[in-house]
């Protein structure tokens, strides 16, 4: 008999907090034997039913579709009603820590105020905007290729798992966040939609848009529905260039500047890309640049770029860029 068919004894440490009465959260400990088919939601229920009736958490459908039951187990975002508990024990050992998705937004125990998530979701216009004939006589058909372009973005159930795992959002309140971007992509790529450009413009703006994403892939890891928000973020970048929405700024010039550099050397000219992307703004990197010179990392007087490495068969690289490149930044 394999281990996984057995019951396992574990300790659960649950985050307890009531925003109305508590100044700081506490962690309460519960011991239980966990069967092989139990879900994290079953354990939440057992805390409430067997230990403390005041323990609070959200759940509704119990079928992985309403998106209400997201929490973090040992730091990993999970959908409680979909996540097998013994899998978590395999991953983290016999002490499981239950926490809300965002501690700073905790209202009571596992329940958080998800207001910021919904605001951003709404701002991106998560619906098809189109002049539709109210009494159509034929169906609007969508081809298979068009449907495939959605890339699973429409499987999002707005659970917030990715949103509250995103480190950029932790430090930048303006940032739309991965779920809103996935929605922006889902509707911008919809062949019936007329508001694609507006959405692309919103997501192109520095501070709130895709250029502030640190590319950590926490959102990909967090999603219980395999939406892969980071892939949609890359698509939004591409669409900004394809549809001429990208404006010349430090971030777009940085992305585009790679081609310029690779064409010359095969490698990235690290000094040049900062100069090129920043323009006059480059002065703000002065103190760091000096440190790099002092540590022998950059060579400021190497005007002829003698110290710059060059790829062998550079001509191949240049030809590829000339032939394959389709995007441009005006």
């Amino acid at each position: 008999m394999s281990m996984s068919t057995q019951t396992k004894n574990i300790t659960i440490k649950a985050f307890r907090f009531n925003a109305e009465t508590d100044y700081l959260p506490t962690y309460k400990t519960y011991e239980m034997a966990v069967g092989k088919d139990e879900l994290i939601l079953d354990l939440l229920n057992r805390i409430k039913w067997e230990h403390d009736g005041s323990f609070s958490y959200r759940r509704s459908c119990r079928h992985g579709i309403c998106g209400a039951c997201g929490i973090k187990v040992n730091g990993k975002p999970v959908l409680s009603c979909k996540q097998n508990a013994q899998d978590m024990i395999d991953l983290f050992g016999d002490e499981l820590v239950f926490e809300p998705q965002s501690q700073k937004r905790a209202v009571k125990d596992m329940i958080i105020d998800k207001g910021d998530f919904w605001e951003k979701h709404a701002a991106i216009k998560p619906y098809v905007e189109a002049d539709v004939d109210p009494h159509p006589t034929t169906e609007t058909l969508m081809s298979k290729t068009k449907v495939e372009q959605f890339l699973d973005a429409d499987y999002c159930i707005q659970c917030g798992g990715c949103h509250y795992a995103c480190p950029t959002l932790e430090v930048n309140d303006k940032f739309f966040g991965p779920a809103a971007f996935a929605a922006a992509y889902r509707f911008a790529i919809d062949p019936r939609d007329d508001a694609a450009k507006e959405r692309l413009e919103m997501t192109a703006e520095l501070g709130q848009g895709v250029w502030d994403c640190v590319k950590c892939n926490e959102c990909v890891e967090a999603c219980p529905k395999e939406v892969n928000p980071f892939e949609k973020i890359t698509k939004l970048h591409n669409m900004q260039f394809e549809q001429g929405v990208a404006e010349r700024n430090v971030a777009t010039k940085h992305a585009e500047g790679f081609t310029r550099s690779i064409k010359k050397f095969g490698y990235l000219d690290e000094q040049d890309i900062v100069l090129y992307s920043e323009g006059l703004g480059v002065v703000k990197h002065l103190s760091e640049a000096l440190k790099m010179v002092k540590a022998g990392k950059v060579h400021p007087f190497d005007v002829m770029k003698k110290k710059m490495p060059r790829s062998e068969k550079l001509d191949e690289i240049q030809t590829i860029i000339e032939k394959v490149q389709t995007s441009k930044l005006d």
Partner: protein
Amino acid sequence: MPKLKYALYTGCTAKESTPELLSSTLAVAKKLDIELVDLVEASCCGASHLQDFDEVLSLTLNARNICYAEQRGLDVITICNTCQLNLVTTKERLDHDPEMRAKVNEALAEFGLEYKGTSQVRHFLYALIDDYGLDRLREQVTQPLKSHNIAPFYGCHNIRPSHLHHKHNAPQPELEVSEGGGEVSYESEEFLGKYNHHENPYAPTSLDELIKALEGNTVDYESKNKCCGFHVDLQAPETSNALSGTALLDAIDNNADLMVTPCPLCQLNMDLKQDSAGKQLGRDIELPVLHMPQMVALALGCKPEEIGLNHNVTKATHLMYEM
């Protein structure tokens, strides 16, 4: 055990602003008798930014990079997390999207190149652990790192997304060829399981194990698997400083006297920007940040100058004295 031999994809950083990464990688390979063949024809991987501008161009250039390893019949070793992710993202796409593969190969055909998908792409960290082996490594240690509390900083692109990590960085099971000629074990549950083997992105262990094998003390701290913010440093330095500064302070508050990372971009960001991050967060930050191969090389008895310790911005003065 046969001699280990790989194609080395250095990436740009190791040949430019972190020369100490290249010299220490070569020093480790020499000590352990691992042969590394430099992919001299390779280009920049695009550092996760080129793909935002032009996806097909990024795929074609990276397919070309892999081709030169395939031609030599070697698996690829990367020494940068972001290179690793860019190369395996390309591999994954071309291995599963025949249309894109045809398109890319059409562009490569002009130079007699064809992407076939025969070379594996892994980060040096995992080749050391899984191919060379920590037990063998332990035997080679001449300068144990006993007196150091070392904070492992894993860097996003080695551990996330985990499905790519597990498929490519993990050791490949021997392909059993069944009677009909089909591959058996490739599709096996264990191989495709999300968190098989040793790297759970929420509690990774590889670097910790490596530090222990070199007899250093590992520092356990929450930020070890977090992002350093490097990729927005130009457009959003406040974000970048907040993330790198928080991780550095977390390590310092847990008594680290060194940090180590397998990613040169993390290393650059965490090493170079300690003053500005400190200023933003209102605390002094000073913590030397080593590249993973620098740490291994030190334990194997290499001298500070062989592994470019002078190129680290925040100087590991205590290390230099010791050696």
